[in-house]
């Protein structure tokens, strides 16, 4: 296959598919064992400083926010990250946790730019930004999930998004067309929030599935937070709903309202007031720091965080709850 050109971005996490197979063979238990633990245990056990992480879905929608807050609470500083994010990427940037980014979108949707990510990049604190599209990052996970080193695609071609990526343009050996090859992306640690999981890590999600199926299969370690830990029987009664099987999972953390202030399909809506206030506060570096103190560093764990949010607020956002 003829390589026509290469993007100039750094390949932050070069894929080694044979090592990945070996890892999955020797380091991932196929036994049905109880993987329940606290968020503090899960993260200190499986995440090391300097590793490459990914978070699914994104900050205002089914994101593992309680796990994200715990990463920040434990003070990780030199992470690389797949940046498809809103609130969670913003907080990681605010806490100076990220040094390198494979970036597709980090922003605040209707509220505009991500102020902390912007500051972290413009100041040079984030040392490396490599560009991709949304499809590209998801297909990079898909390649890893398929166990192949790259996927040929028809996006990013002809643009600066390609030029500043680590993709390659090749001539298709079958058609002669130009294709954009995306390298597989294998995460050191992935974080996914789901509606329900059993203690072994079999996971089910309601509503859109984002890139959970692909990212789960592209993670060497996978930490799951779940709104509810359910009996194995419930999973077995509807196995067609299982999107992440237990053997991909290393830790299961129970986290009701784990996506707060983001939403969870069928369970609760986004906490618009909280998000709007943060979007405003994050314009100022001192107020951003105060936010991190109040909502992360000064609370011990997710339970204390929920106490701080308050039962009244939680019942207001709960679907079918006390909302007027």
């Amino acid at each position, binding site marked *: 296959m003829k390589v026509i050109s290469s993007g100039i971005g750094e390949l932050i996490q070069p894929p080694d598919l044979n090592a990945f197979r070996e890892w999955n063979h020797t380091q991932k238990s196929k036994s049905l064992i109880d993987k329940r633990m606290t968020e503090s245990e899960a993260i200190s056990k499986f995440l090391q400083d300097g590793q490459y992480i990914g978070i699914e879905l994104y900050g*205002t929608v089914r994101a593992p926010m309680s796990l994200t807050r715990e990463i920040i609470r434990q003070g990780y500083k030199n992470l690389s990250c797949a940046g498809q994010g809103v609130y969670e990427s913003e907080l990681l940037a605010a806490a100076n946790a990220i040094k390198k980014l494979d970036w*597709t979108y980090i*922003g605040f949707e209707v509220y505009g*730019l991500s102020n902390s990510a912007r500051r972290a990049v413009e100041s040079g604190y984030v040392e490396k930004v490599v560009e991709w599209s*949304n499809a590209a990052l998801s297909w990079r996970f898909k390649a890893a999930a398929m166990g192949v080193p790259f996927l040929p695609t028809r996006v990013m071609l*002809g*643009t*600066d998004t390609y030029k500043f990526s680590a993709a390659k343009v090749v001539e298709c050996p079958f058609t002669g067309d130009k294709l954009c090859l995306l390298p597989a992306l294998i995460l050191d640690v992935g974080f996914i929030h789901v509606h329900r999981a059993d203690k072994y890590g079999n996971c089910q999600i309601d509503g*859109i599935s984002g890139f959970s199926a692909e990212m789960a299969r592209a993670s060497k370690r996978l930490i799951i937070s779940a709104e509810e830990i359910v009996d194995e029987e419930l999973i077995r009664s509807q196995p067609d709903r299982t999107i992440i099987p237990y053997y991909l999972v290393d830790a299961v953390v129970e986290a009701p309202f784990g996506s707060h202030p983001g*939403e969870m399909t069928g369970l609760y809506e986004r906490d618009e007031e909280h998000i709007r206030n943060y979007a405003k506060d994050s314009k100022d570096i001192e107020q951003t720091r105060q936010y991190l103190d109040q909502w992360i560093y000064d609370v011990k764990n997710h339970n204390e965080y929920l106490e701080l949010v308050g039962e009244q607020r939680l019942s207001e956002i709960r679907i079918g709850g006390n909302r007027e």
Partner: protein
Amino acid sequence: MNKSDYNPNELLICIASRLMEDNATCFIGTGIPMLAAALAQKMHAPNLISIFEFGGIGAQLEKLPLAVGDMRTFNKGLMAAGICDIMEAGQCGFVDYGFLGGAQIDIYGNLNSTVIGDDHDNPKVRLPGSGGGNDVGSTCWKTIIIMQHGVRRFIPKIDFITTPGYLSGPGAREEAGLPPNTGPYRVVTNLGTLGFDENSKRMKLLALNPGITVEEVIENTGFELIIPDKIDNNPAPSMPELKILREDVDKDRFYI
């Protein structure tokens, strides 16, 4: 209606909405495209199939989505899928229209939403990035861009091509390997509607918004626009459009 009877956002939403065809598949991005799609479903296009990048297909847009992955993007929908299903449908040619925004646009409809400044590694302003923009602009058949008009946005050379328009001109998309017969179709702005010349692929003025002159469009465009002999006039938002927009689509006034 008089110009003073509606605001600029309402005008943009109504004009974008009229471009959305019934029974067409449309990639919908954050903001004005969401309102335009909801309005179109309630006016002329009840079977407009909205497609949201994180998996929502064919929602009935009863409540305004605030995020491209939120639960309103598949409310009473036909399918709640994942991002790969959606992007692969686009790559296979199933998506008719894509609606996009951007910070900067050039004469060939290339869009920048990545960085301001000419040094990617030391940007003056770091913008949100491609997201699904590049994918939509690469794979759907017709891209419709919605932007505020101005000389700092409509510029001869944008700082970064995030999303492909016609790149450097006729044949450039195909030469780069992008699917044939795709590309930008319309640019909807607060001043009027623009299209692209069939041969040169350069941007041209198609229609003026109420009260806007050709001179105003030229003054607010940083490159030379093609000005054809015949230019249409975009009708002002109608009473039914405004009523639905204000009392139903965005009754909490999130955008308008």
